[in-house]
């Protein structure tokens, strides 16, 4: 074992041991939280050599353990793709761990906090193993560790019925996904002659198109359930609001991306993708992105809104991935590099701004004890740092220039545009759709985040609750500020990320290092220009600033109330609400969203009370899963006659089953 590998192994061990130590602290919860806050960043530092070697040196890091597994060996490998995801995992998880120490101090039962950190560390461990596992069985074990620890993190406040429901939906979704992953790896193994080692997967050439397509579909469903492709997204908007904020940040920022990691890994083995795979991915991405942003618009709860935005962004990544797969099929290097590259970069960027937004939302929640958007308002006066960070995150997730979100969307746009330009006559519908879909998603995201920022942080407070709010303590503030700074730096100097992308692209795609380099040069120029434009804008801004300073100094600034169109007694509750703000869009898409409203109009000449409630349930739960599960429940209900409560009868069932099996196997031989 090399030195980086050894360090990496100890990082994993540290996560596990410190997790157990956090539990052992029991009632000394301050100690537990300190251990939790320190362990993940420390583990990140210890894993750093392996990550650096994996990314920047062609030689992957192997960690072989003398443990025997059926169907292969217990091997972890850190290649460029793994290292890229490890970078994201450890960066975000470290910040979330630090944030969580303060955050958890004010949440839940005292004894539950240490336990929560145990599961947190286990989640990080699980994701690390998923990203590095070099064996199918190990991968699935790691996947299960990740899924289950996330379940226990989500159900932190398990006494609330809402949380119980969220946990239930999450665990069902996770396990439906894992069934497909089992099938996926089993199918791979049957084609390699019984080995589940990833090294074998990449070596076999599957000539059979049908098997290849089946493998692709299995990975699409299995990994899509974790990533949150529509219609497998239903667990996201339930689980994220229920979990503590630093956990939502980690889950939304990193864990759902492990689904994309799985897809990328699988695609790197399936060397001859078919055209329709790309088309399916682009279509799934478009539907996911558009529905995600539309549902986000309709939400009243900030964390639900953010969760639906994760769905939207996963859609954008899927579009990029799909364009890349199209490129593989058509042998168009620009499409390959920019599709896969845009997808990867968006994974990185989204992990930054989404965890930022969830952490800022957590700060708001702890101050005001609600995340109902229409109950908030004017918070920037009381929480200036949180407000500024949220603003930056909101602009970044809307894909606005000068921030990091724009860069990755630019790459996916570029892929779409180059496909529109270069593809043959009559078949450009797909890239055109992805282009227009991206534009629509972008426009709607702007609407959604101006709503979120405007209603929560700007204007005046809608309830008195906000009067005593304040920015959180430094350990909750600093992670948010670091993430905001990352958004700005990666947006202003996007050229910095290209060295990160190069090795990963070379690892995932069959494109040569030279071609990747040549293609990325195409984007290097725009990225430098992007910095230049930022400079121009800054210059113009300074100029405008100076220009207005003199008249304002001479003539002075007056303060008065907002212009209220002649109304005498303006009240902060008369501000435009979030639901009114999005109403035009909701009205136009009501045939799809089916928003339900309850209205009680004020009556009489001197009306006193009225009521208006709107709620947008997820169509896929309402029309898809609920009837489906009801049908399944009904089916099993029909079998109830078998349950008689007599043990002798049950023993008879067992005997009959055994006999049946015996005969069946006997018959087969």
């Amino acid at each position, binding site marked *: 074992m090399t030195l980086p590998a050894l360090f990496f192994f100890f990082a994993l061990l540290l996560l596990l041991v410190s997790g157990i130590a956090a539990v052992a602290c029991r009632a000394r919860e301050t100690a537990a939280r300190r251990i939790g806050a320190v362990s993940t960043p420390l583990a990140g530092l210890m894993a750093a050599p392996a990550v650096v070697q994996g990314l920047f040196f062609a030689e992957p890091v192997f960690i072989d353990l003398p443990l025997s597994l059926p169907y292969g060996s217990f091997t972890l490998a850190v290649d460029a793709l793994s290292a890229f995801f490890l970078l994201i995992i450890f960066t975000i998880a470290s910040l979330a761990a630090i944030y969580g120490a303060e955050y958890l101090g004010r949440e839940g039962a005292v004894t539950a906090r240490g336990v929560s950190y145990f599961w947190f560390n286990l989640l990080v461990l699980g994701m690390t193993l998923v990203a590095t596992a070099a064996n199918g069985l190990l991968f699935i074990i790691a996947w299960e560790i990740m899924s289950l620890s996330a379940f226990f993190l989500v159900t932190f406040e398990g006494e609330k019925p809402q949380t119980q429901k969220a946990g239930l939906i999450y665990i069902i979704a996770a396990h439906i996904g894992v069934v497909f992953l089992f099938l996926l790896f089993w199918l791979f193994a049957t084609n390699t002659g019984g080995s589940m080692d990833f090294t074998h997967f990449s070596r076999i050439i599957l000539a059979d198109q049908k098997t290849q397509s089946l493998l692709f579909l299995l990975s699409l469903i299995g990994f899509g359930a974790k990533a949150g492709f529509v219609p497998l997204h239903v667990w996201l908007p339930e689980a994220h609001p229920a979990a503590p904020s630093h956990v939502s940040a980690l889950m939304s920022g990193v864990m759902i991306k492990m689904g994309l990691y799985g897809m990328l890994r699988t695609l790197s083995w399936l060397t001859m993708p078919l055209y329709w795979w790309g088309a399916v991915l682009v279509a799934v991405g478009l539907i996911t992105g558009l529905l995600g942003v539309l549902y986000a618009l309709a939400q009243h709860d900030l964390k639900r809104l953010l969760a639906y935005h994760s769905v939207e962004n996963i859609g954008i990544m899927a579009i990029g991935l799909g364009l890349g797969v199209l490129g593989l099929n058509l042998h168009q290097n620009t499409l390959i590099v920019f599709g896969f590259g845009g997808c990867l970069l968006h994974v990185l960027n989204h992990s930054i701004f989404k965890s930022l937004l969830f952490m800022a939302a957590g700060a708001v929640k702890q101050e005001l004890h609600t995340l109902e958007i229409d109950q908030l308002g004017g918070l920037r006066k009381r929480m200036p740092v949180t407000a500024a960070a949220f603003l930056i995150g909101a602009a970044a997730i809307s894909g*606005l220039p000068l921030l990091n979100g724009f860069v990755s969307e630019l790459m996916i746009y*570029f892929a779409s545009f180059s496909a529109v330009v270069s593809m043959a006559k009559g078949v450009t519908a797909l890239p055109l759709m992805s282009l*227009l879909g991206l534009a629509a998603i972008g*426009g709607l995201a*702007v609407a959604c985040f101006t709503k979120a920022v405007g209603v929560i942080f*700007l*204007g005046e407070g809608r309830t008195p609750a906000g009067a005593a709010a304040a920015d959180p303590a430094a350990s909750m503030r600093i992670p948010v500020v670091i993430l905001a700074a990352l958004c700005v730096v990666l947006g202003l100097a996007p050229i910095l990320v290209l060295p990160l992308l190069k090795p990963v692209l070379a690892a995932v795609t069959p494109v040569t290092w030279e071609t990747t380099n040549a293609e990325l040069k195409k984007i290097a120029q*725009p990225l430098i220009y992007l910095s230049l434009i930022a400079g121009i804008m800054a210059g113009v801004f300074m100029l405008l600033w100076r220009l207005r300073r003199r008249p304002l100094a001479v003539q002075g600034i007056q303060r008065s109330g907002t*212009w209220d169109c002649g109304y005498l007694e303006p009240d902060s509750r008369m501000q435009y609400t979030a639901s009114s703000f999005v109403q*035009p869009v909701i009205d136009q898409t009501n045939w799809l969203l089916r928003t339900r409203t309850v209205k009680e109009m004020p009556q009489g000449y001197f009306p006193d009370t009225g009521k208006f409630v709107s709620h947008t349930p997820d169509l896929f739960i309402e029309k898809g899963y609920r009837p489906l599960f009801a049908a399944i429940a009904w089916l099993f209900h029909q079998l109830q006659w078998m349950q008689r409560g007599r043990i002798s009868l049950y023993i008879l069932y067992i005997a009959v089953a055994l006999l049946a099996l015996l005969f069946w196997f006997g018959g087969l031989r």
Partner: protein
Amino acid sequence: MKLSALLFVIVSLLAAPLLSGWIVRVKALFAGRKGSPVLQPYHDLFRLLRKGAVYSKSTSPLFYIAPMVTLSALIAALCLLPLPGFGALLSFQADLILFAYLFALGRFFTILAALDTGSAFEGMGASREAFFSVFAELIFFLSLATLARFTNSLSLSSIFESHAAGVNYADSPALALLLVSLFAALLTENCRIPVDDPTTHLELTMIHEVMVLDHSGPDLAYILYGAALKLWIWSMFIALVIISSFPSPRWLQPVIAVAVLFLIATAVGVLESTLARLRLTAVPRMLMAAGALGLLSYIILG
């Protein structure tokens, strides 16, 4: 080459308010009035730049930072816009995406500034702006896709250079469809009738005007100037589409561009004098129809 482009940026910055002045003039002529001088917008701007400001107690620094961000985004977009026949000051692959998104950046901050005042009316305007501009953005991207495909290039300068490459879609009705849909987007983005009425006095019916009700002094000057610049950029974009579709000597193209600019401004003025505003619920219909025209243009050429 670059010098001419720099000159173009400077001239655009200086001449942009002329277009809005001309529109007001055309409308006055139609109404049988003499109308204010074409240079009136300049007087207004200078007057506002000398004034102090009144800020609402509810607002934060974002309120006065927003107009500056919006204006600097527009000026950055202007740097990407090619001078007909000569190319842009800054030109690179995929600059058309940045060009479109700079408008979105400006819109993001304008909407936030409106919400910062806490006024229900401004919130209402912001909501409409956010909604309608989604359509305008879609139409714009559709037209970009059409142009990019037919000129086989991914930067604005080479798209509008392309007549030399023998690409000619002028004799196809697709060009007319493209122009109509772009014009509808121009009317939407620049808050003109039939989408929005820049001269209305009823807050309930406003879209853009109501969003900037609370701004005053230099901030208002930046907003008004920004609006003029936006109209200039959009009109110039349409002019570029027209010019690049017909062969003409390079030196003549800027001259034609000026003519087309004033033609568009006149058209806007005539439209505002003869057309009523659409009901707000009918605006999406109009924009969808415009989008359908744009898509049709793409299909026909594709």
